[in-house]
């Protein structure tokens, strides 16, 4: 049975994409296929999570080639949590894209690409082989490249060139790192590598050097401090249905890999790597939030906040205690939901008001009180106001930091939270609260007309936002299940023997 449930999160989107290819240019059929695929993917990943919850780590060896030789798929709690989060976000973005994208973009294969992207994300989370990890990253990135460039408007092409160039660089760093590890230790299976690295008597320096290559490669992909400049330059260019998914999920996948590799493999010389991560996480938070303060575009503010939030996730890895890693895991899941939700809200605002620039927006609170309320919940959750989900993540991280005496970092993280509230207040003031700027009356009248004509469409666009807000409220108000899952996931991560035994002795 576990053979089936481990490959289902990969097979379902793949089959969905193949069926969409058969019905190329028939958007109605593709939509039906897409809905069916997303629902079954959600069900399959929820089942995977419940199985890993009960039965521990699941493994399957593709083609029945045993572990160090064949490719292994491994699902522990952390990876199944990621798979579930990506499926939830996938449903929301898919519903949004039913009406939130122009047909010209949909005709050129948006649906199959989105499904393949989801397959790539699930592949990165489930693989247990270093080279396979790289291949899944390429699957994911190629889908991202095409999605960002889809439609071919000028800012999109500019954004996608930046994205492609920097990510190719990151991939080559990753590949060099993999090559070095294979050259030193002679294996690519992550469980076997974990054994070999812990037993290594010499070559410690070389292994640490290889880990730095991984750190740089994955650091670029997940936008860590000195390597984040590409992100705010490219993430806001594509239409919202695309950038919401990419912004919500892809950088977190990089961070997932970082946490996986640095808890399982690169545990030597932690006195060199962890301080580096500490400094990087603090600077990522601060620089991201300061960058956001300077922006006047809804999406750009959110893009800079992605960078800032990445710092929190990295903070857990840098502190490296069970509580801290659990905090990181919780924070990653929370952030995937919240960030996608905020991006979708900016999409709804754009659809009803025709702009992303704060200067041209205003008065949304008056026309769409429900949307405003949902924005408040998501924004407060992002900032970490107590009953909402962001609070629990930050609380766990701050507590872990105080326990090991990292007062500076904790102080930084808390003051960055205040600055986050500042930026969210800025959006709130400009977009929702201030009076609609009276620049031209005709545009206003046109807007009123749109509101009447597109009512069902606008309602449909509200639906995924509402869904995500409910999910955020759920993991915030009833945090216990997710927190305990995060704790057990971090225990699994820190006790690598469980992972190693599950893969090698099966």
């Amino acid at each position, binding site marked *: *049975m576990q*053979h*089936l449930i481990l*490959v289902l999160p990969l*097979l379902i989107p*793949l*089959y969905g*994409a*193949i069926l969409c*290819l*058969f019905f*190329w240019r028939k958007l109605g059929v593709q939509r039906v296929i897409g809905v069916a695929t997303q629902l079954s993917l959600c069900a399959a990943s929820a089942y995977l999570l419940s199985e890993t919850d009960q039965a521990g780590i699941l493994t*399957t*060896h*593709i*083609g*029945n080639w045993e572990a160090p030789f064949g490719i292994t798929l491994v699902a522990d709690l952390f990876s199944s949590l990621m798979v579930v989060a990506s499926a939830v976000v996938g449903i929301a973005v898919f519903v949004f894209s039913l009406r939130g994208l122009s047909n010209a973009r949909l005709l050129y294969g948006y649906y199959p690409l989105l499904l393949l992207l989801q397959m790539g994300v699930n592949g990165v989370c489930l693989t247990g082989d270093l080279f396979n990890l790289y291949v899944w990253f390429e699957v994911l990135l190629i889908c991202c490249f095409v999605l960002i460039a889809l439609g071919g408007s000028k800012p999109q092409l500019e954004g996608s060139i930046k994205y492609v160039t920097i990510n190719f660089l990151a991939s080559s760093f990753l590949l060099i790192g993999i090559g070095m590890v294979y050259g030193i230790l002679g294996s690519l299976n992550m469980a076997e590598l974990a054994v070999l690295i812990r037993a290594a008597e010499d070559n410690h320096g070389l292994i640490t050097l290889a880990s730095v290559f991984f750190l740089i490669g994955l650091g670029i992909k997940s936008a860590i401090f000195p390597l984040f400049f590409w992100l705010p330059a490219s993430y806001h260019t594509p239409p919202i249905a695309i950038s919401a998914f990419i912004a919500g999920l892809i950088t977190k996948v990089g961070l997932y890999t970082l946490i996986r590799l640095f808890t399982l493999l690169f545990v030597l010389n932690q006195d060199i790597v962890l301080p580096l991560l500490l400094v990087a996480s603090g600077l990522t938070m601060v620089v991201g939030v300061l960058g956001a303060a300077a922006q006047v575009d809804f999406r750009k503010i959110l893009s800079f906040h992605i960078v800032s939030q990445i710092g929190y996730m990295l903070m857990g890895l840098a502190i490296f205690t069970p509580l801290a890693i659990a905090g990181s895991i919780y924070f990653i899941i929370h952030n995937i939901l919240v960030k996608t939700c905020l991006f979708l809200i900016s999409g709804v605002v754009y659809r009803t008001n025709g702009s992303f620039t704060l200067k041209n927006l205003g008065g949304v609170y008056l026309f769409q009180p429900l949307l405003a309320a949902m924005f408040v919940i998501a924004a407060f959750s992002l900032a970490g106001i107590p009953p909402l989900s962001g609070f629990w993540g930050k609380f766990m991280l701050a507590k872990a930091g105080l326990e090991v005496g990292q007062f500076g970092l904790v102080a930084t993280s808390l003051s960055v939270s205040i600055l986050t509230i500042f930026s969210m207040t800025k959006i709130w003031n400009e977009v929702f609260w201030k009076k609609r700027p009276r620049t031209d009356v005709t545009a206003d009248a046109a807007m009123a007309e749109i509101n009447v004509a597109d009512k069902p469409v606008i309602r449909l666009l509200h639906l995924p936002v509402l869904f995500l807000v409910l999910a955020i409220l759920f993991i915030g108000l009833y945090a216990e299940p997710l927190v305990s899952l995060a704790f057990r996931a971090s225990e699994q991560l820190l006790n690598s023997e469980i992972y190693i035994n599950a893969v090698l002795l099966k």
Partner: protein
Amino acid sequence: MKTLILAVAIRIFIPIFVFFSLYILIRGHNHPGGGFIGGLICAIGFIFHTMTHGPKETSNTFFTVRYYRLTPERGQGFLLHKLIILYKNLFRKEEVRTGSEWHKRQFRIDPIFIIASGLFLATTSGVFSLLANQPYMTGVWADYYLPIIGKPGTPILFDLGVYLLVLGVVLKITFIMAEE
């Protein structure tokens, strides 16, 4: 590139390329060869045809299915109607061609369909072992031998999928490049 020699020669070479690629595909399990290289070799002939005649002509000649359609009788089932069309088109060509109630239709096979079927075959080849509660993509083999192919099993399906996928991708690229 309109040269008479190439234009005539390619008509003879296309079947050679196709058959040779099938040979390479089938021998690939134990010897050098396989789906990827087979698909590339199969595409060579069509690439040359596109170079001499243009992409429209290539897809008209090789990737268009022409058939004759019959308007359904009242009360006739959907499946029966399709089956009759299929049967008459395959085995009663003369009757169909001369019959007045048959209408000529054509259907263009876009390379994207070849890509999709290739992906579908390759993905599905791994599913059979899941049904037997084995890991994904474990080879499932039959007990008997077929002439030429040898022992049939799921790996040949996978290779066939790769063959179609590569063929489709190369054709798509060629057609797009040739149109520009």
